[in-house]
């Protein structure tokens, strides 16, 4: 165990250094690229914290989908930004902001160093939920998400839907109901089409695989759904498919399917198992899998729509 500490220290310095670069860079696009690299390194840090599930989410959401979102925004805004960026804040403001930042970071660091020992933990409760009433889930994180803290997970899907509605409503009134702007160029290059044709089917399989193993191994609905979303975006970037019209019925059904199924089964639990979001022991595992399938669908539809942005162009009606 002599190499690991060096690796950890190097990794920590790299992450903090990239964060500093993201804040300090003069060029907008350089800052965006720095942030994307930072997201990649964070996935490595999460592995070192023994959190492969989080690393997988960070890699899929932070590295892939967010990267596309930010690079697109950075390139669009970079074309606009010419002279306005020169407005440098006053030195006094810099000092005050620096002092405040230093104080907050220092306080947080002090908290980190003086955390109580032994650490408080909810691990036994989570382990009970994993073994719990007939669930038999080998992956405690999936158990926490679906059973122990199921209300959080359901509301988090609602947040995704609210964000999609928010993004849609930013568009012009006349465009309501139309499709978002295409993600790719009108005539995509051959190599990009080929790449999307290779990646999308393989990636869809990997996404389903990661969802499927999530009951017992690192993985699950979030990670699988994010990978599926990324593959849909790959197909859209190569113009193999277009963003759907936002008034399409299938689209709206797919968006609400995750939380709706979750809620319905939650209420059914009230009658059948005596508690809100309680699963009848005999069917717990199939029920959880059923809920997760619809959650994957909702995530895979919501994330690309968030990246595609508000509807664009004229509504047909």
């Amino acid at each position, binding site marked *: 165990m002599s190499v690991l500490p060096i690796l950890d220290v190097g990794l920590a310095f790299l992450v903090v250094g990239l964060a500093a670069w993201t804040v300090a860079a003069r060029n907008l696009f350089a800052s965006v690229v720095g942030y994307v690299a930072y997201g990649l390194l964070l996935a490595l840090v999460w592995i070192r914290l023994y959190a492969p599930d989080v690393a997988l989410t960070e890699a899929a959401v932070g590295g892939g989908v967010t990267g596309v979102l930010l690079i697109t925004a950075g390139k669009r805004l970079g074309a606009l930004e010419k002279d306005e960026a020169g407005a440098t804040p006053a030195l006094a403001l810099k000092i005050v902001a620096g002092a405040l930042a230093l104080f907050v970071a220092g306080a947080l660091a002090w908290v980190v160093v003086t955390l109580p020992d032994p650490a408080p933990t909810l691990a036994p409760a989570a382990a009970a939920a994993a073994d719990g009433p007939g669930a038999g889930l080998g992956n405690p994180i999936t158990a926490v998400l679906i059973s122990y803290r199921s209300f959080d997970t359901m509301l988090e899907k609602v947040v995704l839907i609210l964000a999609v509605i928010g993004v849609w409503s930013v568009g012009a009134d006349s465009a309501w109901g139309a499709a978002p702007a295409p993600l790719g160029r009108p005539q995509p290059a051959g*190599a990009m089409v*080929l*790449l999307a044709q290779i990646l999308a089917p393989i990636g869809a399989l990997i996404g389903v695989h990661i969802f499927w193993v999530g009951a017992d191994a690192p993985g699950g609905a979030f990670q699988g759904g994010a990978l599926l979303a990324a593959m849909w975006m790959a197909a859209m970037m190569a113009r193999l498919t277009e963003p759907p019209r936002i008034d399409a019925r299938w689209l709206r059904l797919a968006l609400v399917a995750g939380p709706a199924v979750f809620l319905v089964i939650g209420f059914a639990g009230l009658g059948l198992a005596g508690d809100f979001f309680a699963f009848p022991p005999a069917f717990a595992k199939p029920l959880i899998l059923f809920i997760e399938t619809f959650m994957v669908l909702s995530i895979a539809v919501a994330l690309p729509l968030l990246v595609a942005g508000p509807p664009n162009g004229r509504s047909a009606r």
Partner: protein
Amino acid sequence: MSALFDLFSFAAIGAGVFFFFAGTVGLIRFPDSLTRLHALSKADNLGLGLIVLGLLPRADSALAAFKLVLIWALVLASGASTAQLIGRALRRGQK
């Protein structure tokens, strides 16, 4: 037999590390974007490929070995396509 495998792993991973090193040196030192692209592809394809080759004898199961090869294949496909696209964009004078 296992010592032989270890030696093979060691040699392949060492060579892989070397290619990452060479790719980085090229990315830093080469004078223009096209030559830097060339250095990057070496690290992408050969560096990762040799490391996958070195880890293959250590895979526990056929699935693990398949995953290793699949990872390399995905990176190869991505690297080759994006290198071609970047090269074309550079030749047209875009940046």
